[in-house]
């Protein structure tokens, strides 16, 4: 049995027939071909699949594609054109906020939501906001610094 879905991802409409059980992350990666969003665990612990669903962060491994039908999804690929970087991307680069890069798309998408809701977070607040995103490389410290720097660049302090 297949079900029609229509999901707007990074401003472009993707429609297709999917199995009801298909995960949103697989729709993003397989149907839309946007592989910046990663699968790191099966239990919504790691946060590598973090995207924004109608503006709020969601772990796309724990959302069905059919649930997201009619919604707007933003992924890392929609954050910038890759030439003019988003201030968060720039800050992750400046502050060495990544090593292997696998958690980075999810980290940046989670951080973007944080800064929309709290333009001037403390380091403590950043750490709490990112507790649902696991990074095994950086020890988080430079990620926190990157989010701090981006907050400044985006007009927070």
């Amino acid at each position, binding site marked *: 049995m297949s079900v029609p879905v229509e999901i707007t991802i990074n401003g472009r409409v993707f429609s297709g027939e999917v199995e009801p059980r298909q995960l949103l992350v697989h729709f993003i990666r397989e149907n839309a071909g946007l592989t910046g969003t990663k699968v790191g665990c099966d239990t919504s612990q790691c946060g590598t699949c973090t995207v924004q669903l109608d503006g709020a962060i969601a772990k796309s491994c724990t959302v069905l594609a059919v649930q997201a039908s009619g919604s707007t999804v933003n992924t890392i690929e929609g954050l910038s054109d*890759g030439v003019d970087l988003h201030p968060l991307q720039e800050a992750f*680069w400046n502050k060495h906020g990544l*090593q292997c*890069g*696998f958690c980075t798309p999810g980290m940046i998408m989670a951080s973007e939501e944080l800064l929309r809701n709290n333009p001037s977070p403390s380091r403590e607040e950043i*750490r709490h906001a990112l507790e649902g995103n*696991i990074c095994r490389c950086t*020890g988080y410290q*430079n990620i926190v610094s990157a989010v701090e720097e981006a907050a400044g660049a985006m007009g927070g302090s």
Partner: protein
Amino acid sequence: MTTRSFGSGIRRREDPRLITGKAPYTDDIKLPGMVHAAILRSPHAHANIKSIDTSAAASQPGVVAVYTGADTDGVLAGMPCAWLIPGSDLKTPEHPAIAKDRVRYVGDAVAVVVAGTRYEAEDALEHIEVEYETLGVVINPKAAAQPGAAQLHDDVENNIAFTWAVAGGDADAAFAAADVTVSDTITLPRLIANPMEPRSAVASYMAAMGELTLWSTSQNPHIARFLTSVVTGVPEHKIRVIAPEVGGGFGSKIPYYPDEAITAFCAMKLGVPVKWTETRSENYLATTQGRDHVEEVEMAATSDGTITGLRTTVYAGMGAYLSTAAPGVPTILHGLMYSGAYNIPNISGTIYGVFNNGTPVDAYRGAGRPEATTLIERLVDLTAAALDMDPAEFRRKNLIPKFENGHDVATGIIYDSGDYELTLNTCLANADYEGLRAAQAAARAEGRLVGIGMATWVEICGLGPSQVAGAVGFQGGLWESAIVRFHPTGKVNVMVGSSPHGQGEETTFAQIVSEELGVPVEDVEIIHGDTDNTPMGWGTYGSRTTVVSGGAIAFASRKIKEKSKELAAHLLEAAVEDIEYDDGRFFVRGSDDQAKTIQDIALMANVAWSMPEGMEPGLEASAFYDPPNFTYPFGTHLAVVEVNAETGHIDLQNYWAVDDCGVQINPMIVEGQVHGGVVQGVGPALWEGVVYDDNGQPLTGTMQDYALPRADLLPDINVASTTTPSPHHPLGLKGVGEAGTIAATPTVYNAVMDALRPLGVNRVDMPLTPEKVWRAINDAKNGG
């Protein structure tokens, strides 16, 4: 204008593709006609396979094929163990890629389904009928080595895969003569490496040409090619292994796994590309784990505070089979480091490598050295306490004094250079140690459990001299090679055989070329990870890539400089002895307005319109660097914790690291390695550890149960460094990838034990979960 960036923390050149989500990892690869494999894994820790019926699975929707171990007979060789430590009576029982008649751990591969989609493949797994006859199970490595324990392999008595000894001086005499001896039993929990990217493989076989291409999440694609050839029988020159972007490894992507061999097998059978990607829970079953030591250890000292001896008996869990490098980890990379940062004249250690019904254990960040450093540093604290000496003062008294070119230790290895006391003094000053102790005294007076812990440590890195590798049974070399190629426009490609996967060497290697030849960093592109367009190399692990590949790049660059000088002399109509070089420019001494830049030279060498007699065209050099010794980075770390006596909860409040990794190419990257390493070392002290029940069922089967360090659990780490160049390395490098992980476990463990010391608690098994700590506190209060 200088182009130099060597020694400065420039931003990484690899980052733009990563921060935009554009970098392809193995699971992102999609080939025309590609099908998907899913592997059925044993639900039992030990069982005979009575029968397997795949007929129902084979008729499920989308299923292309189902294979069992019997199908691989005569096609796939057994999984190789490639570190055959000598003098140890090592036994390497057969390890089939797919189990045939017996499974030995939960996760052992039993069958594989190939289907059009991954969903279909996983659905069909549930239709494979396997009849098992369960057998006895043993998990604890010491228990496994006892007579009467369940036997994993019929020809391995008491599950002892090897017995390896290290000795120097006369330990028994030292203990007999000691004024003070202390002993402890230390358990290093079994750890899951947890790179954020699960393992994945894509195999494509072109039968007409006999060519196999394997995309693999490997830290060492050339070793993967070598071993793929051994296991599949495809000749090495017909195999191309590509490690595209790799999302962390920490040692767990060194081994050659059954899963890659199975994926290649399926592709070869079916003639279409096959992808296999593990789920995280599969990673927790089938990807090699680390540590799993039971260490019975003791230290001897004289009353004036001099350490005189160390004795150990170590039971190192190997899991169900010997993984690729497993035997070398608790032996060569562990026992040889028993002198630590100290002069310990008398050392004796016996290490048993023991099969148990768990996932195979292999290298995990630090590999053997965290296990050694933890036991040494714990014994140092216990001995200091027994002598009623301050642990910092006790360390200072026993540290090896500063040396610049070689220091022999009792285990027979030669440290390259060190100034251990400098890192100790720097760390104590940065942390305001006296102030911390005063604050601790005040807190204790209030009944609060505040602890200060430290470790002064040294590690063996930059692996290593190939002759030594051979002598200790490593079935490969440990050199690296590099090709530095100048294009006509003066832009540079560097091809290396090692394969960084997060460590930033696309940047640091470019900084080396820039330093050596005066080209801007942005004009240098590093190519790695594809066996078809890189020279042979042994891979990225053991804090070796910057050191060993960096050495090769430096020497290749210097060959180019020599050729450039000769060509400059020819073009400037001067004698080569009169040519000077400065920052990318070659000129006749005294007339540097007539200089030829390295870019001029690159153009003229590539067009070859006017070359000196006998000089070949082109500007390219390759170099092979086989290090003359290992490198020995070192440092001192210090942590402050507070334990909540009511709940057993530990608050890691502050952490100072002082590392000496020799010369630093990019301090920003060094600092990042220390941050990440420290947090991985804190993990097993406080949170991380695999738990099996008595039946060998893993209770930590997902990230919900295996407690990884999270952002909100950690303080900022105060990082500083000293610089003691390696005397034998062309750039003075030592390596830093594992340092933090080696140091942090004993540092934090010692801090917690220091906090509990007023209660008389001296040991609690890691990880120090609140429940265990709470029980220890209550037992102590109740006079236990």
